[in-house]
């Protein structure tokens, strides 16, 4: 197989070829330091503020999709064959402002202005997708953008009016779509890409088989999917990730399909990419999914990465465990299947051999009679890491609980099932008393930590109360048991 030793992409409509980039080079530094495109700002370098928001367009089955990403933790190596769009591309060649920009000016959406280019980019992406967004859609699109000055009100007003300034159909990214698509197609030569510098190697395998091969060649390599964890290792902890094997460009890993009572999800499917299928099959995940990180991170971060990193506070493992999902691991041509809960051995230790990777996650569809819920508690409602997260899946037949899968995050060193609680439920009548008795067992399952997110006491108390919420939500009662935005 031939390999290519440079990377090619479009930056604001212009082709760029780079020979020497390190695995850990970030898009933000490239834009600001190499290209002096200083409209894109650094506010945190950890994916949390959105000041660095840019759009990345990438082909998926021939279709060009633009998504917002955080340039600060996006590695250059992962942009092969992509179109990078920064705030500088928005105003026309004549200097005329873009509808998003004009709306932001007219509604006084900027004060200090430092967050503004990032907001402009998020709103741009929203408007292209949803020209007339609801307030909820606007808020959801802006979860990954912090503004310390305005209090957001004028930005929301601007967002609601963008479409009166122009329609997406006339936008450059749409009028140039065919041309850009063919340019990107020309770049996609199906080769493995190996980018080298004196002390760094970044590999973009040609396909999944090549990924398997590359991992056998470099069993010590850092796998990089969405880089929403790995990016921070570099920007915050100054880690060296070379040799690094990138996988977010692999279309096969981004496939998600549903058949025979099973959802099969490639490990490279992002939070955003999984939302439609998962939330259609499991409506209880809708709110929960929108509370994972912010939009940019949801576009980048993968379910495979969320599972593979083995964090005790990852949001998908408790839900996947409750649903009875399985993880398919691959090394070379050998595959094995594990229940998700069995993948987590201890803090920082997963059942993943050197050279092995997560290829797929399989989720069985819900059984009739099963009651589902997924709850997340965090200090701030959106774009915050859970203090406690829980996935619940309880089967009730003829008033009796016949099965229970309940898994918590934030309560132990790994995402973990609440065995004592489950045992206290199974075989009991579906009643408030049963739930209370089961909740009382929770301290047998967990002795949570105290940290800056929550105290041990609060974690335990609120986790118990979430079991109570589960009961109340499923008991026929008119009174609301959850908060709703007006």
């Amino acid at each position, binding site marked *: 197989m031939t390999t290519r030793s440079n990377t090619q992409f479009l930056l604001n409509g212009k082709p760029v070829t780079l020979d020497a980039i390190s695995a850990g080079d970030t898009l933000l530094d490239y834009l600001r330091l190499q290209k002096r495109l200083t409209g894109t700002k650094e506010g945190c370098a950890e994916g949390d503020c959105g000041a660095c928001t840019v759009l990345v367009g990438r082909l998926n089955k021939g279709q060009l999709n633009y998504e917002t990403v955080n340039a600060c933790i996006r590695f250059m190596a992962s942009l092969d064959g992509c179109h990078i769009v920064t705030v500088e591309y928005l105003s026309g060649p004549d200097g005329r402002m873009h509808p998003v920009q004009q709306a932001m000016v007219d509604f006084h959406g900027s004060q200090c202005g430092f967050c503004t280019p990032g907001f402009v980019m998020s709103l741009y992406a929203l408007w292209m997708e949803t020209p007339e967004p609801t307030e909820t859609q*606007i808020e959801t699109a802006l979860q990954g953008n912090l503004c310390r000055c305005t209090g957001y009100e004028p930005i929301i007003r601007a967002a609601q009016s963008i479409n009166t300034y122009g329609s997406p159909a006339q936008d450059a990214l749409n009028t140039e779509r065919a041309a850009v698509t063919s340019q990107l197609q020309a770049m996609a030569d199906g080769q493995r890409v190996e980018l080298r510098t004196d002390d760094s190697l970044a590999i973009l395998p040609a396909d999944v088989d090549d990924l398997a091969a590359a991992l056998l060649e470099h069993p010590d390599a850092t796998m990089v999917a969405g880089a929403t964890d790995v990016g921070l290792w570099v920007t915050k902890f100054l880690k060296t990730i070379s040799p690094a094997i990138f996988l977010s460009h692999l279309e096969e890993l981004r496939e998600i399909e549903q058949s025979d009572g099973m959802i099969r999800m490639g490990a490279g499917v992002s939070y955003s990419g999984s939302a439609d299928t998962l939330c259609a099959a499991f409506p209880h995940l809708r709110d929960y999914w929108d509370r994972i990180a912010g939009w940019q991170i949801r576009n980048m971060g993968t379910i495979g990465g969320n599972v593979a990193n083995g964090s005790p506070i990852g949001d998908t493992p408790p839900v996947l465990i409750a649903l009875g999902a399985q993880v398919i691991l691959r090394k070379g041509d050998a595959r094995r299947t594990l229940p998700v809960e069995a993948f987590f051995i201890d803090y920082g230790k997963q059942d993943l051999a050197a050279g092995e990777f997560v290829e797929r996650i399989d989720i069985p569809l819900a059984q009739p009679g099963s009651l589902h819920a997924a709850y997340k508690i965090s*200090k701030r409602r959106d774009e915050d890491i859970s203090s406690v997260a829980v996935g619940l899946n309880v089967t009730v037949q003829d008033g009796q609980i016949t099965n229970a899968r309940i898994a918590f995050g934030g309560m132990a060193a790994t995402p973990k099932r609440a065995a004592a609680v489950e045992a206290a439920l199974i075989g009991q009548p579906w009643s408030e008393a049963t739930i209370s008795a089961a909740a009382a067992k929770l301290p047998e399952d967990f002795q949570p930590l105290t940290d800056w997110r929550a105290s041990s006491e609060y974690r335990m108390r609120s986790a118990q109360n979430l079991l109570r919420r589960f009961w109340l939500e499923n008991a026929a009662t008119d009174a609301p048991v959850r908060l709703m935005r*007006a």
Partner: protein
Amino acid sequence: MHDDTRPDAALTPPADRTLSGGVHVDRRHDSAVKHVTGRAEYADDIAEPVGTLHAYLGLSERAHAKLRNVDLDAVRNAPGVIDVLTADDIPGVNDVSPTGRDDEPVLATDKIEFWGQPIFAVIAETRDQARRAAHLAQIDYEDLPHVLEADAAQNADMPYVTPPLTLKRGDAPVAMKNAKHRIKGQMRVGGQDHMYLEGHIAFAIPGEDEDVIVHSSTQHPTEAQHMVAHVLGVASNAVTVNVRRMGGGFGGKETQMNLFCAVAAIAAKRLNRPVKIRPDRDDDMSATGKRHDFVIDYEVGFDDDGKIEAVTGEFAARCGFSSDLSGPVTDRALFHADNAYFYPHVLLNSHPMKTNTVSNTAFRGFGGPQGVIIAERIIEEIAYHRSRDSLDIRKLNFYGEGRDITPYHQTVEDNIAPQIVADLEARSDYAERRQAVLDWNAKGGVIRKGIALTPVKFGISFTATWYNQAGALVHIYSDGSIHLNHGGTEMGQGLNTKVAQVVADAFQADFETIKITKTTTEKVPNTSATAASSGTDLNGMAALDACEQIKARLVEFAADTWNVAPEAVRFLPGSVQIGDEVISFPDLIKAAYMARIHLSAAGFYKTPKIHWDRDKGTGRPFYYYAYGAAVSEVSIDTLTGEYIVDRADVLHDVGRSLNPVIDRGQVEGAFIQGMGWLTTEELWWDEKGQLRTHAPSTYKIPLASDRPRIFNVDLADWSENRENTIKRSKAVGEPPFMLGISVLEALSMAVASVDDYRTCPRLNAPATPERVLMAVERLQGEG
């Protein structure tokens, strides 16, 4: 009379010609277009000259320790490293204490007093190299016991970082004893990180002789200039500090930038190369100060109606390892401990405690919010005790006739708190909505609601009287274009826009003809920090003074040249009427230039009437007060403590607004920031004394989805400043921050509902979901 400087073309002004961007009109931020297009230049965006180096700080990893040995060999030998600076390399004085107390070293010498204290600086070819090298130091510490909390510092007999203040009127102990009812309580109020989106940054370019130019993102260029001169051991005239704009300041860049300016300047002079320093967000939040946390013990005596008879308060503040601005900050907490209420007898003491934490500093409100919050807590306590709506208790205790002397003996002459509150109460349907909340809660259930209306009265002026001065420089070029410069700095608040409006109004010249230029110590010297909400009050007046000087010369020139009385010279939009003739403004300027009229002026302003005797605790520290009020309505989940702010209605007093849309933006932003302070923004130190919430991943400021969906913000358009401020406007930066207190009290009411409002929940701040749940459970336990 005809002389050749007089233009002959006369012009009739179109009747409908209006001025673009005068005063009292909406005008967008002058940089708005640059903001949205990414073309606004911040300090980190300035093109770097060839040879620019980058500095990074090496920070301590102990809260309190002796430095036994600092081994920097690995740092020196790291790739790209050019130089390493320690305290010994500072040519002048190793101190950046803003108040001259000599207690704040740039780089630590033999002891470490907080986790994150700078020990050395490394200078390398790239920022990445400097940053990596900074982590290679081998430091041998001898650990010492550390103290983090203000009350723990009191118990450990830690010293004050600055002299405390007492405010006293009447005989509080006796009045307290005689009061029919007494309540004693304690409130813990957390600090707050500024979380400006643009972090600290300084970029120094060496010049000839001892000269150095520093581009920085500081609210206080003059102080940075003085500090750089101080650490370099040179005169202030060698140092120029420039600020075009900041990506947010909020007080966090008032004194805290001194460190970065000092390090960049020392390195630049030493190496004779430009040097830039920009810490990452973690270091920015670890090594620079924040809002002061307070532990406040209060007691109130009151009668059956809930009328206050006496108040005492002990205000212990976490000041950190040095004084910084803790003196005036803790003073201001006492100045605002009355908020809008009359205390017949009062005794307030501040305790500015030294702690082994980063030195706390200015933050929007400057200690005032921590005072106001206690006044509101006291009201709340009385309301629960008397089973009354807290709004009734508020009204009963407002300042009024014969009840108008503050604890610092200033007479409240401009009290409009009752009017603001009455107006807002009606606009917001407070009474009906409160009843609806009570009815909702009466049904029981998991979701409970709360509603609260709280006012603010905020004193305007620096309490350090000498800071209440400002300068401006206005030039008119011979083509009629205007150059405006003043001592204030632009951090998003729209100061430049407002001052330019004042200039536009003065000359009746369109806003577009005025160029707003970067703040620089070269043009206006000896400026005060852009702080204390004073930016427009001070700089607007100074700019107006400059304009008036030039106008006087123009009027004299025109009157002489056209042979009319000075009163017959009138500035019209874009033109000037001289007797019966009208000529364009540029034509007049051209003519004036030809006649050798001086078209430049330096303006100056100092605030009148104010004085303050700190030792006696009496005076008139404030020129006037700004007022406001807010009603917030919330829902809480009693199973998890999570909450939503459903609605907020705000009515705020900015006098006669210079620019209503900008002022409203300040009010909205301040409300949300105040809400953040009291809800999700939590500073959390571990037992080793390390702040663990030091980036947006762990420190949670409000998001768009945290703001109330219904958010009605109005300016009290009927208000006018009774003092002769710039166009009768009022300062706006800080006062509305305290309106966020209504959210805390509404949360408190929702909690109180679980035991039928029998107990004041005494929610500490920030009221995270955890604190709300724990309060719910406490009250359920008691109920």
